[in-house]
């Protein structure tokens, strides 16, 4: 039996002439956390809405645990726990009553509901707020209650839209721990976030989407490896007046495709290049030989944020180029 729990095939959604999502193909395995990344308006929410049965695709298909999200939207609701970016609180309702309502809405029998409410509050660490009014909770508390709500009917898949948005550092760490615990318990998670360093700490698979198109998809390590094919080298000079000479030498030493930028006020030159260690060593020797006083010559560590910027940079020109095939895993 396949271990793929969430899958989209050639998923497309258009609103008139505007294409919000174009032929999206992703798949997530059981117990994995997919980090779904993209700028505002990239098509993340559209994809999520189709996956949870709130929207119909123009073409293509999507399935959760083998159930078609379009043909069997009602069944999908029981398989997915969805936390939108808006909490959806009700006035004058206590946390326990709030969870009780959603438990009843999912038709969980009373006896089982009592247990489930206790379990989800335990898992999300929200037990101490059971008697507090939902609308009096802080943002971090509401996010915990939101996750507790998604867990009530014990779905195999959780889709969380910006769960770390607006959280303070402590709450963010706690949220991260909760999500990791859920993944360890066998839940499959799809998490969108703008806080990429945070996401890189929890997700094992990444999908980067811009303008409705998938730019990169695959295990996090593989995406990062693809990015690292072009590494960032930072050269700090002792004197700013050497900058012109340094830049001219760099242009000769590296390919035309490599990016060379400089920050005059910091006396720093940055090169994004796929050059080998030997080539870099030769360039450094050349600089020193030409009398350029170098104080630092180092490779800058790259994270998911860099990967995202690398993948999406072509969008500014509207070229829509895809990332190198090495980073895209199908």
């Amino acid at each position, binding site marked *: 039996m396949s271990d793929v729990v969430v899958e989209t095939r050639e998923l497309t959604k258009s609103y008139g002439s505007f294409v919000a999502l174009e032929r999206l193909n992703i798949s997530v395995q059981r117990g994995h956390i997919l980090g779904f990344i993209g700028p505002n308006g990239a098509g993340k929410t559209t994809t999520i809405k189709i996956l949870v049965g709130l*929207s119909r695709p123009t073409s293509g298909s999507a399935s959760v645990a083998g159930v078609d999200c379009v043909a069997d939207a009602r069944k999908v*609701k029981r398989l997915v726990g969805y936390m939108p970016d808006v909490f*959806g609180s009700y006035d004058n309702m206590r946390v326990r009553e709030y969870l009780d*309502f959603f438990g*009843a*809405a999912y038709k969980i029998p009373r006896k089982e509901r009592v247990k489930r409410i206790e379990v989800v509050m335990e898992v999300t660490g929200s037990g101490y707020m059971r*008697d507090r009014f939902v609308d*009096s909770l802080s943002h971090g508390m509401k996010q915990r209650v939101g996750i507790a709500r998604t867990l009530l009917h014990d779905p195999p898949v959780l889709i969380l839209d910006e769960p770390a948005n607006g959280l303070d550092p402590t709450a963010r760490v706690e949220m991260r721990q909760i999500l990791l615990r859920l993944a360890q318990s066998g839940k499959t998670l799809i998490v969108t976030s703008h806080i990429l360093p945070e996401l890189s700490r929890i997700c094992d698979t990444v999908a980067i989407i811009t303008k409705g198109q998938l730019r990169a998809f695959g295990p996090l390590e593989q995406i990062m490896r693809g990015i690292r094919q072009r590494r960032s080298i930072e050269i700090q000079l002792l004197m700013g007046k050497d900058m012109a000479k340094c830049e001219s030498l760099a242009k000769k030493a590296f390919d035309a495709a490599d990016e060379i930028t400089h920050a005059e006020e910091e006396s720093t030159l940055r090169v994004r290049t796929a050059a080998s260690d030997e080539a870099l060593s030769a360039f450094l020797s050349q600089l020193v030989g030409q009398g350029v006083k170098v104080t630092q010559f180092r490779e800058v560590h790259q994270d998911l944020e860099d990967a995202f910027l690398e993948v999406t940079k072509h969008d500014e020109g509207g070229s829509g180029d895809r990332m190198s095939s090495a980073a895209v895993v199908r």
Partner: protein
Amino acid sequence: MWFSSLTLVIAGKSIAISNWEELMNPIIQRELIGLLRTRRAFAAQVVLTAVLAVLVVLRWPESGRANISGEQAQAVLRLFGYGLLASLVLLAPIFPASAVVREKQQRTLELLLNSPLTPWSIFVGKLVASVGFVILLMCLSVPAAAACYAMGGVGVPQLMHVYAILLLVAIEYSVVALYVSTVSQSAEGALRYTYGAVLFLTIIPLIPQWFVQGQVSPVLAEMVGTFSCLSPAPAMMELLGHKSVGAQGVMGPSSEMFRYVVWALLVIAVFVPLTVMKLNYRLFDRSHAAGKITDDRSMGVKFYRRIMYLWFFDPQRRSKLIGPLTNPVMVKDFRSQKFGRPHWMMRFFGICLVVSLGLMLATTVFTIAWNVEILGGIIVILQMSVVVLLSPALAAGAISSERESGGWTLLKMTPLSAFTIVTGKLMSAARTLVLLLLATLPAYVVLVLIDETQVARLLDVLITVVLTSIMGVMISAAISSLFQRTTGATATCYTVLVGLCGGTLLFWLGRGSPFSRAAVEAVLRFNPLATALSLIRTPGFDDYQLVPFNWYLMGGLIALAAVVLWIQTWRLTRPQ
């Protein structure tokens, strides 16, 4: 200039308006321009112009010649004056009612209070913007007024007086609405309370005079007459050549216009300083109740709370889980609506019961002076007021508030069907209304005991009240499903229901002249309040035959609202 340095003393504090620029503050420009850009404002202008044009056309002499006595012109002016007054009463409070509370919700009031603008400037800005819009509406009515003038028989001073009263009404109601908006926590709540205040200021003062005129001592009659002038209707009627609202052949107090001006200025003088005093940082300096549970407290506290809340209705008691046969949406709505909680229900129930029992006592004590018809009329008005005020409060946010808060997406994610959601919403509103109406029933029982022949009539009245309740809830819920914001839905619901039950009564006020009996009856057939009053033979309504047309109409409206609600909910629950 004479106004260049003006000092006002409000609540014992001197507030200096150093120059004209302070009055012409940026809020006026922003509010007024912002207001004029809204669809609501555009709709209000178009509807008002259309209604006034239709009213003038309806009464325009067919022969194309003016009557030298000016009778025709006066008839047109009456229609125009009443129409404009009714429109202003319904429209004027809508914008100021949400003016401050919306700033509070969007947290822009904090920015305003943190700017060099004084609370006084903020208040003046809001008031002038709101009244400015009303003045614009009044300007749109000038062509209709000019038509009256052109017919002859209507002088410029009379027209000026009409406009002056209308302006005073606009200022008075805007001031009250701004106060309500300042002390409210939600825009829809502000609208509810504002319309409650408008009902109190416009309709309620007329009721005692209508019921007691000619049957009490002159001193009491004078007092009741003076109280009736709190409403702008008597002043307008005096200006338009009618005497005393609902007078049963007896003269009312003299110079109603003067009395109304005094009342209005008094209301303005009370509410302006109250509002300005409230507009400060203390509006935000309150903690949200985190919620304490009685079950977790000491025995003494538990005992005290349970006695205080009659044991079962303690709002702080840990609630039970939703039962298997109960509609979860209904229970959720009860719990999340402030007045849906049992202790509030019991308070309302208690108030209605006390009023009902008071009426029972009045029935037995004053049966000779106040006949059964008058007492029945009071009960009917009480019930209808409850229905008109509470139906939108309970059902106008049924769908729109869920969409506004994001709860609708969560509801869509559950296996609940559109039918379950709709029935849950309707049941939560209906159960509250039914309970409150039940509390008013004891007075009917006494009426039946006094006069057994009344049973059939009272049953008809009850059918009308029940139909009105269902119609109120259904129309409110249907309107709610069409709006994305509860404020808009609530305002529309009140406009429709108050217009139906109160607006059409303006034609009844003009019975005899300018409206014929047949015309008044035709209009009153749409009015459920008038239908109930006619069924119980309340003086003034006893000679109109409004049933069964009104029942059919209400049945039709209920069916239409149900269809709209069902289609719209189905549309909203299906995948986009």
